[in-house]
């Protein structure tokens, strides 16, 4: 996903030009599908699994096409907009997503993990703390989870997340701050990472 910016240079007209053209020539909109379908799917698949991600990918572009008249044509990049639509669709699968995190946490717990001392000694990887990460993601509020995963997995910056979720940038900062606090606390409990003082866990 780091290569997206490079692709943007190589791929022809900017996204806003594509959207503008699609207002008169609707078929032009398929260009956005070709550019971003894999990225939208990848983001959704990490949250919901591949099957539900297929639906989200298909629905996201259909919804985006229907709403292209609302796209802010001053923005050259349509990724935040598309990922925002996908995020809203993922909310319709909230139960599926929660089941996924809980199942992942349980599977990791039942998977015969190494003793604690060995885990601490081992190289710290996402695989080693899979259970804690999944459990922490299940604990987050939907708003916090959306902001965090758009940042960590879709690699949007604060401004882009604000555009994607249609909230002020300060709200994005605060949601990310709290979400990272929950993650840090979950990891601190394993002894694998120090918790940051003053980080409160989301509880409501």
């Amino acid at each position, binding site marked *: 996903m780091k290569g997206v910016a490079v692709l943007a240079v190589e791929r022809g007209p900017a996204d806003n030009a594509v959207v503008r053209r699609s207002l008169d020539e609707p078929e032009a909109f398929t260009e956005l599908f070709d550019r971003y379908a894999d990225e939208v*799917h990848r983001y959704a698949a*990490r949250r919901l699994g591949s099957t539900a991600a297929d639906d989200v990918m298909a629905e996201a572009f*259909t919804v985006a096409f229907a*709403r292209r008249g609302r796209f802010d044509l001053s923005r050259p990049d349509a990724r935040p907009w598309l990922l925002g639509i996908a995020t809203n669709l993922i909310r*319709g699968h909230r139960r599926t997503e929660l089941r996924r995190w809980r199942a992942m946490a349980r599977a990791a717990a039942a998977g015969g993990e190494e003793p604690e001392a060995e885990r601490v000694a081992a190289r710290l*990887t*996402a695989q080693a*703390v899979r259970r804690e*990460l999944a459990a922490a993601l299940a604990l*987050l509020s939907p708003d916090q989870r959306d902001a965090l995963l758009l940042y960590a997995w879709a690699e949007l910056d604060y401004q882009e997340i604000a555009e994607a979720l249609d909230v002020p940038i300060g709200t994005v900062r605060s949601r990310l701050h709290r979400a990272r606090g929950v993650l840090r606390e979950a990891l601190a409990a394993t002894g694998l990472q120090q918790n940051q003082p003053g980080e409160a866990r989301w509880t409501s």
Partner: protein
Amino acid sequence: MDELTLLRELDADAPPPTREARVAARTRLEREIARPPAARRRRPSWNGQRAALVFLVLTVIGAVVVVARDMGEGGELTRSDLLRTDPARDVLELATRNQEGLGLPANMRPGQYLYTRTVIEATPLDPGGIHRTLVDEGWLPTLDQGLPSRTCELGRCWTAGGGGVPSAEELERIPREPHRLILYARASHDPSPPSEPFTELDWNLTYEFLFGLLRTPLIVPPDLRSAVVRALAYTPHARILDERVEFHGRPAAVIYFPSWDPGSIIDRYVADLIVDRYTHEYLGERWELGPADMKGPRNRRLFNSSRVRLVSHLEEAAVVDRLGERP
């Protein structure tokens, strides 16, 4: 290594869409593009600058949701033109039956839990499948205390943080007028403006909220339950199977949705609700699991069938003082 780096590594090798899924999605988009403009979803004319968003934190069964309302200049909702004006008579007739005084809401103090016990009869539709009777229990706290909740789904249970049931004051704030209630429900999980007319996703969000209210026993006031049924009459899909008898012999009606395209989001996520014919109290629901639900080893082992029909009955509901306590 910090928590973000670890999170970025989690499932970083998620596979790209299959060729078939990609082609199917692109074909769907091309089909939408090829439709005559009049048949497409109309381009929204929502004026965001005039829309004042009123946020209200509310949770119905396990989710904190942000609710936004579209307010016109006079403070009135202005989007009623999105919805049907000719209500489904069978649903409306059910809504008018609520007998005053029946099913008064229970008081739930902060820190208490709403306990539910539901029995599910699962009937496999393939030869050789296994019939199961499953019991799901749940403990939902009041929303404002940040207490953990415990939930079961087809016999598998877990404890989680967050979520709960709304307070009586929050329930009182929910509009009773059908069009206002529908728009309120639509905004409950997604404050972005709805499409004109509602898309499948808009309806999915709306039904999720309305069903959440109907599914929550004891604490939802009877007038709100009836308002939900009345609102359903103004949706394009809800229908009633009346004069049914529920598992324990109670007079029941089934609210169902015959008009979804098979495979649509809502076809997969909205169940048929079974409610009392007179009080609209939640009695249970019925739904089906299909091949997509049988991909996991647990469900395959549990039912040994590609399709399973499930009917649930709410056996017990009570307010208790502690997580794990049974009445």
